[in-house]
C-alpha cells in the first residue's frame, strides 16, 4: 500500500536540482522524439483476436534475433519457435513514422529475450495453453484449434518429433508470467532486452515495415 502522504505536487521544486535535470531532459526529449523508422501498416493492440499484426511483428523479430545468432554461429542452440503475450505489448503502433518514445510505450518493461529448453511434452502443454487462452503472439509455429483444444500444430510447417526444443520468449514469461507454467524451472539462455530488439528491427529496416495476419492460430468453432 502507499501511505497517504507521498511526495506530490504540493512540494515545490528545488531550482538547483531542476537546473541539473533540464539539459539532460532536453537532450533526451530530442533523442526520444527522433524518428527511427516507418511502418507500412497499422499495428493495433488487440486482446480479443488469436493473432494480431502487432503480435506477429514482435514475435517474429524476437525469434529472428535468436535465429540470427544461431546462423552466425554465436550460439549453439537453434530456436524452434517464439511465444510472447498480448498483455506485454502496451500500445498500438500507427502506420507511418515511429519514434523511440513510441517503442518505450510499446515495451516499457526491462524484459529480456530468453530461450527456454523444452521437451516434446512441454511443447504439448504450450500448445494446449495457447488453445485454451485464445492465442498469444507466436512465430515459426502454427496451431489449429477445435473445441478449445489443439487439433493440429506444426513448427516451421512440420509436425513435432520427440526431442528438445528451444522456445524464444521473454524472461517475464519464462518465469511463469501470464500462467505460462510450462516454462518454470527449465534451463534457459538470456539475450538482449526485448525493447532493444524492437528498436534495432525498426532502425535497421531499409523500407517501411509490414506484417500481416497469416492464420498462425485458427479456431474452427
Amino acid at each position, binding site marked *: *500500500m*502507499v*501511505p*497517504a*502522504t*507521498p*511526495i*506530490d*505536487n*504540493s*512540494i*515545490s*521544486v*528545488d*531550482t*538547483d*536540482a*531542476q537546473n*541539473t*535535470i533540464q539539459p*539532460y*531532459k532536453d537532450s*533526451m526529449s530530442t*533523442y*526520444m522524439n527522433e524518428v527511427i523508422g516507418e511502418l507500412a501498416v497499422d499495428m493495433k493492440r488487440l486482446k480479443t483476436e488469436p493473432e494480431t499484426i502487432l503480435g506477429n511483428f514482435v514475435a517474429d523479430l524476437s525469434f529472428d534475433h535468436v535465429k540470427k545468432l544461431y546462423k552466425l554461429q554465436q550460439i549453439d542452440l537453434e530456436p524452434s519457435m517464439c511465444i510472447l503475450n498480448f498483455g506485454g505489448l502496451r500500445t498500438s503502433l500507427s502506420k507511418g513514422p515511429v519514434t523511440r*518514445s513510441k517503442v*518505450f510505450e510499446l515495451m516499457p518493461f*526491462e524484459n*529480456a529475450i530468453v530461450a527456454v529448453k523444452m521437451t516434446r511434452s512441454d511443447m504439448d502443454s504450450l500448445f494446449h495453453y495457447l488453445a485454451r487462452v485464445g492465442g498469444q503472439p507466436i512465430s515459426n509455429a502454427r496451431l489449429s484449434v477445435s473445441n478449445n483444444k489443439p487439433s493440429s500444430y506444426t513448427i516451421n510447417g512440420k509436425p513435432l518429433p520427440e526431442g528438445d526444443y528451444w522456445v524464444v520468449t521473454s524472461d517475464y514469461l519464462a518465469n511463469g508470467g501470464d500462467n505460462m507454467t510450462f516454462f518454470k524451472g527449465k534451463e534457459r539462455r*538470456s539475450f538482449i532486452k526485448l525493447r532493444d530488439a524492437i528498436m534495432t528491427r525498426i532502425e535497421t529496416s531499409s523500407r517501411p515495415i509490414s506484417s500481416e495476419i497469416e492464420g498462425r492460430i485458427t479456431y474452427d468453432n
Partner: protein
Amino acid sequence: MGGLAIAGMSSFTIPLSRNRRKLVILHTNDMHSRIEPFPADHPKYPDLGGMARRAQIIKEIREQHKDKVVLLLDSGDIFQGTPYFNMYGGALEFKLMSEMGYDACTMGNHDFDNGIEGFLNMLPHAKFPFICSNYNFDHTPLKGRTKPYHIIEKQDMKIGIIGLGVKLEGLVDHKNYGNTIYESPVEKANQFAAILKKQEKCDLVICLSHLGYSYNTDKISDVTLAPQTRYIDIILGGHTHTFLEKPEIHQNLDKKEVIINQVGWAGINLGRIDVKFRGKRKKEISAHAPIGLKKNYAKV
C-alpha cells in the same frame, strides 16, 4: 512490537542523561532512475515522486534541523526504470544525489544492469561512498572502489554503516556481475557490525540492505536477518519495494531492538528516523511515518 506511533514521533526508550546529541536519518530505496515525477495520468502513482521535489524537502529539513546531524542514505537500485538510465547510464541519478548530499549508499541488483564497467564509469559522478559488505569485488574492476563498512563522524557522533546485497546468481545476468563473489549476508553483517560497535565504538550501526523486506521462502531478508545479528541498530531496506507504513521494531540475537524500515520505491516517499543520544550508551530512536512531503512533513 509496538511502541512506535503511526505518524509523528513517539519514543520507546527514555533514558536519562544530559549529553544530548541528535540525529535525523533520511533514507530512500529503489529509486529506479525516477528523475521526474510519474506522469499525471499514471494509474497508480499520478504525479508522485520527483528528485527536484525530494531535493527541496531535504533542503528544508536540513534548514529546520541545523542543531542536528542529518544523514541521507540509500539502499540500492538507483539504476533502471526510465529512459534517463537507458540514455545516460546513471550519471544524472548520481549527480543529483551528490547535490542532495547523500552520505552513503549500497548497491542493488539493478545497479549491475550495465555491468561492473557500466557502474564503474558512473562512479566519478557520485560524491558519496558505496558500502558493500557481502559483495567481494576483489577479482573485478570494482576492487577497492566500494567499502565493506564506513564511519561517519559528525558533531561528536560516530555512525557506522554496513551494506548488504542480494544474491546475484539467477537475478542478474552473469556477464553483468562477472567475478563478483556473493558472501553470506549474516556472516558479513556480524563481522563488520562487531568491528563498528566494539572496536570503533560507534554510537549507532546502520545496515543498508538490498536483501528485501520478507519472503514466503527461507530466503534471507531484513526480517530474518535481524534476529541473527548483533550490534545493528537500524536496517534500512530495499529490493521488495515494500511501502511500510512506519518503521518496525524487531529483535536481534541478544533480544535488543532493531528498527527495520523500507519506503516503497521510485522516490515516492522519503523515510525518516530520528535518534537522540543521551550519554554514552543510551539512545532514543523515534520513528516517523514515511515523510510525505505533505502532511507529515508539517509534524517533523
